[in-house]
């Protein structure tokens, strides 16, 4: 009897917590959408659907910003996944234990380096290098490279955890048959590898879509459709960050609309990833 009451209370508490956690996003979306609604009146839906973003002359077309967000995220993901998979494989499967542990700590720390630090380093070190090929250097490519450096540890850590979830006994058994580590990977490691990659890249993609600081500093921030990797671009979040402090009226409403669109893009991409990726369990450490 005592148990039943305690258990019922336990269930109520945990379920309420779950509901609150699930509800946070809804409240966030509702508030942003509410403020974005004003944008439908002024500057109006047709203005938002335009292809030029220049609020100072009354142009509020979001297309170049949406393109900018997607373009940076796509290239970033490509680089981060390749690099992160390599590092994750090295740490979680190939390297001897001591080296792996040290590298693992390095990756965990790297995963926490603030984007502002990466952005500043990118601006002072990477941009001049890229500038030799595409003057002055602030560009789509620079933004994706620095962002990939920022997000790569996340992918690596995820791949590493998934690979380490493979029981040691299984790995030893496979090694005992004389197969090389790669053959061993092909035998028992592919599913955890794929799983770790999917989870890691989903996390990385979500952050890439929402990232602001790095892009602000190195992407060039010209609201246009870039014609090549060396051209500057501006993202949805970059526009909000750059213009929020100085906007009012129609411009301000349009910026909230950008925020709502940014959220919608994340939802769309995550739904897509969910369909492609399947289940997502992560075992860390």
């Amino acid at each position, binding site marked *: 009897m005592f148990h039943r009451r305690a258990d019922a209370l*336990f269930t109520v508490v945990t*379920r309420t*917590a779950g509901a609150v956690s699930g509800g946070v996003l809804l409240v966030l979306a509702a508030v942003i959408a509410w*403020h974005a609604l004003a944008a439908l009146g002024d500057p109006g839906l047709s203005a938002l659907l335009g292809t030029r973003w220049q609020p100072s002359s009354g142009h509020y077309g979001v297309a170049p910003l949406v393109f900018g967000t997607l373009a940076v995220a796509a290239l970033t993901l490509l680089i981060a996944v390749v690099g992160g998979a*390599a590092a994750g494989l*090295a740490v979680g499967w190939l390297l001897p234990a001591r080296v792996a542990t040290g590298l693992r700590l390095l990756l965990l720390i790297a995963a926490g380096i603030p984007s502002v630090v990466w952005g500043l380093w990118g601006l002072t070190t990477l941009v001049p290098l890229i500038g030799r090929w595409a003057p002055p250097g602030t560009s789509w490519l620079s933004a994706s490279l620095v962002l990939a450096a920022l997000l790569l540890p996340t992918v690596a850590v995820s791949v590493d955890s998934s690979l380490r979830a493979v029981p040691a006994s299984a790995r030893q058994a496979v090694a005992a048959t004389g197969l090389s580590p790669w053959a061993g990977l092909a035998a028992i490691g592919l599913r955890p590898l794929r799983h770790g990659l999917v989870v890691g890249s989903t996390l990385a993609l*979500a952050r890439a879509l*929402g990232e602001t600081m790095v892009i602000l500093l190195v992407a060039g921030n010209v609201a246009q459709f870039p014609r090549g990797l060396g051209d500057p671009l501006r993202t949805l*979040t970059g526009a909000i960050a750059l213009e929020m402090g100085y906007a009012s009226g129609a411009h301000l409403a349009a910026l909230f609309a950008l*925020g709502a669109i940014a959220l919608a893009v994340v939802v769309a991409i995550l739904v897509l990833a969910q369909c492609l990726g399947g289940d997502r369990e992560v075992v860390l450490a």
Partner: protein
Amino acid sequence: MPEHRLIHWRWRSTLANATVFALTAVVVAILAWLVIDLLRSAWPRLSWNLLTEDPRRAGRAGGLAPILVATAGVLTVCLAVVVPLGLATAIALAEARGRWANMVRASLDVLAGAPSIVVGLFGLLIFGDALGLGYSLASGGLTLAMMVLPVVVRLGEAALRAVPAELPATAAALGLSRTSCWLRLIIPTALPGLLAALALGVGRALAETAALLFTAGASERMPESLADPGRVLAVHIYELAMNVAGGEASAAASAVVLLAILTASQALGLAAIARSRRSRPS
């Protein structure tokens, strides 16, 4: 295996090894490059005074004391919300099956992907204006909690689920209440994973800039309570590098301090995980 096939594997193996190690080396090199550049810029400003003095000359001299206090304050509020709410939610999700749980998970995934500047705007409008907190550590902490919650819940749930099913089954067979089973058996067993989730959450929190600029503010005064505004480390780095002429060395030094705190917390996290692993019933 026929010999020509063995050689084939060996070639492939070597090539694969070379590729992976080359890429990993590039990754490590870039990280090392960043850290070395940071240390070089920070060198003139690195000293133990950083931890105890107030900033002077807009941060180009003196220390980081109010900034460290502000960071601690924001983190405290954030964790005070995230730890209970996140743990309870992780338990709920680990227990439940079906649509409700999937919806909550999906919602948290989207929240994880919400652009930090959008969450910051929300924090400004709701915590700052509507709830009347204004620019304050409390407002910043609550906003940060929204960003850290998904990380802690998803990783926490995974940790709880990884506990072998025999444990709760045995507990039930022995007549233990569900509550006791959770509190005394499952959670302690899952502690390594839960601590890891917390460590990652803290790492995410320390790195946040944009959202806190709008909510906790940019005042470099020593906050006297959670209702006061304050400047967290990441915001301080941004301000020094962007708005103060000649502030680069101080920005780099602040970044070094942040990395030191990060390293300490991650190392502590890993150590705690290793310890609870060892004392775990297997």
